[in-house]
């Protein structure tokens, strides 16, 4: 083997010596002649016979040459050189193909790299296909949840699961050691990790006795925390650390890829330590989130069926009027994790595949356009002795070179796009930060483009060149014309539906951006302050801090109003409660269901002034009431109308929480957008946050209206707070920024889909232009004849442009049909605009018609300017 290889390598390096070969063949003829003479022929006859017997001299030499190792490499080099020369002659063609490929490959790869983790990645749990999230859905909590009152009953009596566990959420906590840090602590049941098949990389899991009230305080720490705080010291296990001022024993370290099934970040896992016996008795009990592992072979539907008895038990605990608003939900952990980005991911993936399709069609169409005029070249080369295989190889080489260039461009583009995605993406798209280029996808898309390039690029070479193609006057016959036309129609159709989708999103986005929010955000700063609970242990201390902060901020130059609230509209987490739980003095309680949710906030009187929320009735809160022993409410217009209709709400008494204190209504405020930017407004009430300790908690938002630029005031605010206590973390933003962050998601979606629609449109137009100019060139002679026979230039324009118009109409109508059929998919992404908005359809149709008509008219005009004499003399 090795020897043979070496021999070959030697010949590969050695130059062939044509003279020697000639000599050898010459010798053969001489010998043959000599033999013939010996046989009795004359010398001339002998030589003639010898030469006849010998046959083609050149052919033998060629064949001997082809035996050389590396001969085919030489031909490849030849093909490459030839192809490159061709590209240089026609750079527009090469650049267009490469750009098209790069765009298709780059876009697909980048988007797929992002959505792959959302849609297809495997979860870092054992049996991830059998893990489900289980619970009740009710209007009060967006995700399925359980209540302590029935969780334990479910756990003991459920049939479909082999493991059943719960967690009670992630809360902020403080590491109060030598260098304090704000952490996130997740409280879980003792069997939480085993249910997910996770084992600590160091130490052990929780023991059942640690998951009891007043049990030993233990914690598992995340790999990240282990690295940053403890320098991966294996000795951390069994050490005591201080969390929120308590001595807690570290019993283990979580694996690096650990994540909560809710995707909440968590640095520390602690036992939830619920009192089971007490929870069983109380109603409704603690809100919990339950997860379970299905028994092998049990489907989610089956599990739902088997859970009916325990679900009915939970229903029986719920108040009668709520029952038909409570449902059972079992869904895979994956679905829970990606629920709200699922649709976006699929839409993006669809869009980018559409672009890839257009790109492939474009490449195919361009290659075919290039091949038609080359029929003659192929025929000539074939006649000069090029074999069919050689011609095919030549075409393949060209396609391959283009694909390689496209793939390189595409990979670069994919990397750039991916970085752009990550940079502009809003927070909350899971896994985006970890997204990286997927080599498999690059390979897949490159392969796809190679195949489509090869299929269409080689097509003309495979056919036996017709002798007719050699004739000087030969008209290149319109081979594959229908194929190219249908490709263009398909491209226009796809880009039409892409454009409609993008335009709908754009419209929806502008609706979101430009809607009135009911408050004035100009010049307003929002400072979020959350006091560490271990230092401000009593509500009195917390209140004192915030009141001091309020007073000192009010003295700052440039500060006009300082209001305080516990949350800000429209998007922040805020208090919510069920409408039918609110009692109104002198009115019967509503029994018709829950009545939906009501938003509430606790605010100081200046809150309304700082956001310029107008009080439409009554007077709102004043400074005097802050020290009052009574409690006061301001209702939103929506809630006031709902509660009192046309009656005067001022002075009415309202009890927001059953068995809680009564409040007096002081005024009615204008409605504010309070359920996210795209959500339907909820009724809302404001409780006065008085200067009594009971009204305060550890966190507060200070709303600061400035007279000048809020950015200039922000550092002063920071230093004022630091003067009171330099260790308090404070998060300052202008309200404008906060609002703009809320619009990040729709902005991201719109930008991405818009980008792809634009690419699709550009490529479709290039395709159309290519086809029309090809047709125009092909028919040059015909145009000449027509003009000679008296056709006007306008007739010619109509002739050529008509072809394009037909394609545009067919493609456009098909695209609209596709968009109509698939419009429903986008519906939940859209705000205040229907998926089949006629204005959008008309607008997009106009845009497409305009652009594609331009692409048609340019070559058609060129055709119109053909000089009949020249056209007839042509060739």
């Amino acid at each position, binding site marked *: 083997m090795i020897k*043979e290889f070496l021999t070959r390598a030697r010949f590969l390096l050695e130059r062939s010596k044509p003279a*020697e070969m000639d000599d*050898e063949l010459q010798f053969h003829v001489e010998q043959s002649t000599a033999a013939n003479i010996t046989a009795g022929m004359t010398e001339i006859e002998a030589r003639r016979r010898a030469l006849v017997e010998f046959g083609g001299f050149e052919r033998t030499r060629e064949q001997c040459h082809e035996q050389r190792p590396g001969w*085919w490499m030489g031909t490849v080099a030849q093909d490459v050189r030839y192809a490159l020369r061709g590209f240089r002659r026609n750079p527009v063609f090469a650049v267009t193909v490469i750009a098209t490929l790069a765009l298709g490959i780059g876009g697909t790869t980048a988007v797929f790299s992002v959505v792959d983790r959302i849609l297809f990645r495997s979860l870092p749990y054992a049996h991830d296909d059998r893990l489900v999230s289980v619970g009740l859905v009710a209007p009060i909590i967006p995700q399925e949840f359980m209540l302590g009152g029935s969780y334990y009953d479910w756990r003991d009596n459920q049939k479909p699961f082999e493991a059943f566990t719960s967690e009670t959420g992630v809360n902020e906590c403080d590491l109060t050691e030598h260098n304090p840090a704000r952490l996130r602590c997740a409280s879980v049941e003792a069997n939480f990790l085993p249910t997910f098949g996770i084992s600590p990389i160091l130490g052990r899991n929780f023991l059942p006795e640690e998951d009891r009230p007043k049990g030993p305080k233990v914690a598992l720490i995340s790999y990240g925390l282990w690295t940053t705080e403890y320098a991966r010291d294996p000795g951390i296990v069994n050490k005591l650390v201080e969390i929120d001022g308590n001595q807690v024993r570290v019993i283990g370290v979580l694996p690096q890829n650990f994540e909560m099934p809710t995707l909440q970040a968590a640095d520390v896992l602690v036992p939830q330590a619920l009192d089971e016996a007490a929870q069983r008795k109380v109603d409704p009990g603690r809100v919990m989130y339950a997860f379970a592992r299905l028994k092998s072979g049990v489907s989610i539907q089956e599990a739902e069926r088997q859970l009916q008895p325990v679900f009915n038990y939970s229903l029986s605990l719920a108040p009668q009027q709520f029952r038909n608003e409570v449902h059972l939900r079992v869904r895979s952990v994956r679905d829970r994790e990606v629920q709200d980005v699922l649709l976006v991911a699929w839409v993006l993936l669809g869009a980018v595949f559409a672009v890839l399709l257009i790109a492939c069609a474009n490449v195919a169409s361009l290659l075919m356009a290039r091949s038609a005029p080359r029929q003659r070249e192929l025929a000539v080369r074939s006649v000069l002795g090029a074999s069919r295989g050689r011609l095919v190889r030549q075409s393949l080489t060209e396609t391959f070179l283009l694909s390689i260039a496209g793939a390189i461009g595409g990979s670069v583009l994919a990397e750039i796009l991916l970085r752009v995605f990550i940079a502009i993406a809003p927070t909350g798209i899971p896994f985006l930060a970890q997204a990286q280029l997927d080599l498999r996808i690059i390979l897949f898309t490159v392969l796809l483009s190679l195949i489509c390039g090869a299929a269409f690029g080689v097509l003309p070479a495979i056919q036996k060149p017709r002798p007719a193609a050699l004739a000087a006057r030969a008209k290149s016959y319109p081979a594959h014309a229908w194929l190219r036309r249908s490709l263009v129609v398909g491209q226009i159709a796809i880009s039409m539906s892409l454009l409609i989708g993008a335009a709908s999103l754009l419209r929806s986005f502008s609706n979101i951006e430009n809607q009135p929010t009911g408050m004035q955000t100009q010049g307003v700063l929002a400072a979020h302050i959350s006091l560490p609970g271990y230092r401000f242990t009593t509500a009195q201390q917390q209140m004192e801090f915030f009141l001091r902060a309020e007073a000192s901020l009010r003295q700052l130059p440039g500060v006009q109003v300082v209001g305080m609230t516990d949350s800000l509209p429209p998007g922040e987490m805020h208090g919510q409660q069920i409408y039918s739980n609110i009692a109104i003095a002198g009115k019967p309680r509503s029994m018709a269901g829950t009545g939906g949710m009501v938003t509430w906030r606790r605010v100081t009187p200046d809150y309304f002034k700082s956001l310029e929320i107008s009080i439409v009735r009554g007077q709102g809160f004043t400074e005097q009431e802050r020290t009052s022993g009574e409690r006061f409410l301001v209702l939103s217009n929506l809630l006031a109308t709902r509660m009192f209709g046309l009656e005067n709400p001022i002075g009415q008494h309202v009890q927001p929480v059953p068995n809680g204190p009564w409040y007096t209504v002081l005024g009615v405020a204008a409605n504010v957008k309070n359920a996210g930017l795209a959500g339907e407004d909820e009724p809302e009430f404001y409780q006065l946050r008085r200067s009594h300790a009971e009204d305060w908690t550890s966190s507060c938002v200070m709303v600061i209206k400035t007279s000048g630029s809020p950015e200039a005031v922000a550092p002063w605010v920071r230093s004022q707070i630091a003067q009171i206590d330099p260790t308090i973390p404070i998060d300052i933003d202008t309200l404008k920024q906060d609002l703009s962050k809320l619009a990040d998601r729709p902005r991201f979606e719109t930008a991405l889909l818009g980008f792809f629609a634009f690419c699709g449109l550009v490529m479709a137009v290039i395709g159309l232009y290519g086809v029309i100019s090809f047709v125009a060139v092909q028919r040059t002679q015909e145009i000449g004849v027509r003009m000679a026979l008296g056709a006007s230039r306008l007739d010619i324009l109509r002739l050529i442009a008509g072809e394009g118009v037909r394609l545009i109409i067919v493609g456009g109508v098909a695209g609209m049909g596709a968009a109509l059929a698939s419009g429903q998919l986008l519906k939940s992404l859209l705000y205040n605009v229907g998926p089949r908005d006629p204005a959008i359809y008309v607008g997009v149709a106009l845009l497409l018609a305009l652009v594609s008509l331009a692409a048609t008219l340019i070559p058609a005009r060129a055709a119109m300017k053909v000089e009949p004499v020249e056209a007839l003399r042509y060739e």
Partner: protein
Amino acid sequence: MPPSTDLLQGTLDLLILQTLVLGPMHGWGVAQRIQQVSKDVLQIGQGSLYPALHRLEYKGWIQSDWGNSDNNRRAKFYSLTPTGRKQLESERETWELLSSAIGLVLGRVPEASA
């Protein structure tokens, strides 16, 4: 690269290798020899002879040297290399296996016809 499993081509290689066992020979000599030995049944055209000789040389089974022929004309002589000798052995075996197999199928073996 042409595949060497091709029956006819492989056969020609075998014939050339076998002929060269006798000693170095030039191309014309190889052709003549095969023709003579096969009693004019196998006539090797130069169109396949020379490509075959070159191919074998590139494979390292035979080697070539320039020498003088009987009539004192400079000619290219081919001779078997040790690798070629081994290759001949194995090709012979293959051939015998093949021909006896074909023989079996055609029913020419005495036991089979009995």
